């Protein structure tokens, strides 16, 4: 019975993930995968086991508590915090794998003869990867949430330190396997936790989505390793599926930014030369509320480029209001979505969807770049690096080579921004100093509010 159920759940997990790669069926895919997971949990609870004890309360208790908690978190979390949410969840998954491997290894210390050495090696491997996923995800969360120490932290001789840590972990693992003393195990865990931090620390905040995706595949791999130990095929299958999918997703994201995975991990944005900062920057022009409103109102075509600033300010509904006000005056309004706008690919799509923006109004990078020439005003709301002309013009820029939105090809551009501070990549944006560009300073929500009321007065 349980075998059939496991088979069904394995099928549902694979099929669900498959459906999730197409927008039309994604929602159904997620539900199928969820059902698959429930069936798997149920079968794990009922499957016959040798030497089983009735510890049902120990299972039902944590399960129901976390189901409730998970539901509440998922229901109340703001859409803007989605990337952080995923990274926290992923960290918890990693922690779960760590605890599990720890408990198993602990058993091995008490009954050394009941396990093969290779099983212990796999367990320690799972312990290590899980730990890295755990602390790495927590640090990624902190960086995304913009904590004070979110800047890149590069230790001197970072790579040497990493290698030393790895060697220490391997060394201690070897000692531990030959002489199973629990304190060695603690040392391995602590070293692995630290390694996770060092792994993520030098990576810039803008690259966090890539890191989370990578750590996600790590968690998948630990799940698979644990699956081998427990001889559970669904665990193995689900884990590897996530491991492989996470890896591919990571690569896809890197491609969207025109960077290699290695480049991201080493911290590619670290090369911003100091000469850049001192470059002649010229004058920026501000635009007044009424001028901005009039300019938009009498345009034929406006393209809005949303970025993380829009997300933080929660201004997506106002954005939609302005879109409607303009459309009422026969202005064509579109949204150009850069693949890495926001802090996660697809982040902007989710946000605008929340504000009921029509899907057909969202255009992707290539199409948008074809349309800027015929656009009267390009309105950049809280985006910066994705519209930086240096990516094309300046080979010394850390952004060089990243595909960007060529907003400056439109007749005029207006940038909504809180200040002149640099974007996530930490470089100044020459777009702001272009002649046909105007700045409209302020928090995206307040700015759009001002603009919206100005438009109503026209």
């Amino acid at each position, binding site marked *: 019975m349980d075998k059939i159920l496991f088979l069904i759940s394995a099928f549902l*997990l*694979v099929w669900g993930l498959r459906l*999730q790669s197409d*927008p039309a069926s*994604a*929602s159904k*895919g*997620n539900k199928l*995968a969820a059902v698959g*997971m429930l069936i*798997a*949990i149920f079968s794990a609870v009922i499957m016959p*086991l040798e030497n089983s004890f*009735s*510890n049902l309360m120990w*299972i039902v*208790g944590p399960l129901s508590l*976390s*189901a409730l908690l*998970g*539901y509440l*978190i*998922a229901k109340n979390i703001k859409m803007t915090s*989605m*990337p952080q949410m*995923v990274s926290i*969840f992923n960290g918890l*998954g990693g*922690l*779960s*794998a760590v*605890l*599990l491997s720890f408990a198993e290894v602990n058993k091995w210390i008490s009954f050394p003869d009941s396990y*093969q050495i*290779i099983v212990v090696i796999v367990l320690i491997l799972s312990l290590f990867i899980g730990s890295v996923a755990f602390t790495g995800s927590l640090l990624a969360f902190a960086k995304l949430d913009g904590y004070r120490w979110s800047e890149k932290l590069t230790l001197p001789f970072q790579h040497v330190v990493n290698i030393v840590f790895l060697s220490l972990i391997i060394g201690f693992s070897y000692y531990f396997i030959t002489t199973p003393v629990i304190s060695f195990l603690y040392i391995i865990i602590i070293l692995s936790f630290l390694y996770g931090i060092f792994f993520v620390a030098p990576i810039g905040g803008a690259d966090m*989505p890539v890191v989370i995706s990578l750590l*996600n595949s790590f968690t998948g791999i630990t*799940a698979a390793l644990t699956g081998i*130990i*427990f*001889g*559970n095929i669904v*665990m*193995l*299958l*689900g*884990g590897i*599926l996530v491991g492989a999918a*996470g*890896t*591919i997703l990571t690569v*896809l994201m890197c491609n969207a930014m025109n960077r290699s995975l290695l480049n991201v991990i080493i911290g590619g944005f670290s090369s911003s030369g100091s000469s850049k900062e001192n470059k002649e920057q010229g004058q920026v022009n501000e635009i007044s509320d009424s001028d901005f409103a009039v300019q938009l109102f009498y345009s034929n075509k406006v393209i809005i480029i949303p970025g993380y600033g829009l997300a933080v300010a929660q201004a997506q509904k106002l954005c939609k209001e302005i879109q409607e006000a303009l459309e009422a005056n026969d202005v064509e309004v579109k949204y150009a979505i850069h693949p890495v706008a926001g802090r*996660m690919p*697809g*982040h902007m799509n*989710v946000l605008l*969807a929340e504000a*009921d*923006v029509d*899907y057909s109004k969202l255009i992707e990078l290539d199409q948008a770049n074809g349309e800027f020439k015929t656009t009267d005003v390009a309105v950049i709301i809280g985006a910066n690096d994705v519209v930086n002309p240096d990516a094309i013009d300046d080979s010394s820029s850390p952004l060089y080579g990243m595909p960007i939105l060529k907003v400056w090809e439109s007749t005029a551009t207006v940038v909504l921004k809180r200040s002149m501070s640099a974007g996530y990549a930490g470089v100044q944006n020459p777009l702001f100093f272009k002649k046909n560009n105007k700045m409209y300073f302020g928090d995206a929500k307040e700015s759009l509010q001002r603009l919206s009321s100005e438009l109503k007065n026209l």
Partner: protein
Amino acid sequence: MNETLNFLIEYEILIYLLLFTILLGFEVISKVPSVLHTPLMSGANAISGIVILGAIILIRTTESDNYLTLIIAGIALFVGSINVFGGFFVTNRMLEMFNKKKKS
């Protein structure tokens, strides 16, 4: 060396499965529009919480008075299933937004 060989023989089917599932995982995800990256990441993340099956099995095979193991496995189950439930709910919420739009 012998150990490794024994391991390979003992887990032969699992290792085959491992190889094919890696290929399957690559194949399933290879062509995803960037719109779906966030929900997909979140959905895949929920699936990685499958590790809780191990926690369940461990709890079931632990003597009822071995509190240390029970507590560790209980916590593992707890945090792991937050990942599972939270992940699926949150993914669902994201994807529902795409759906809502299509209907209107």
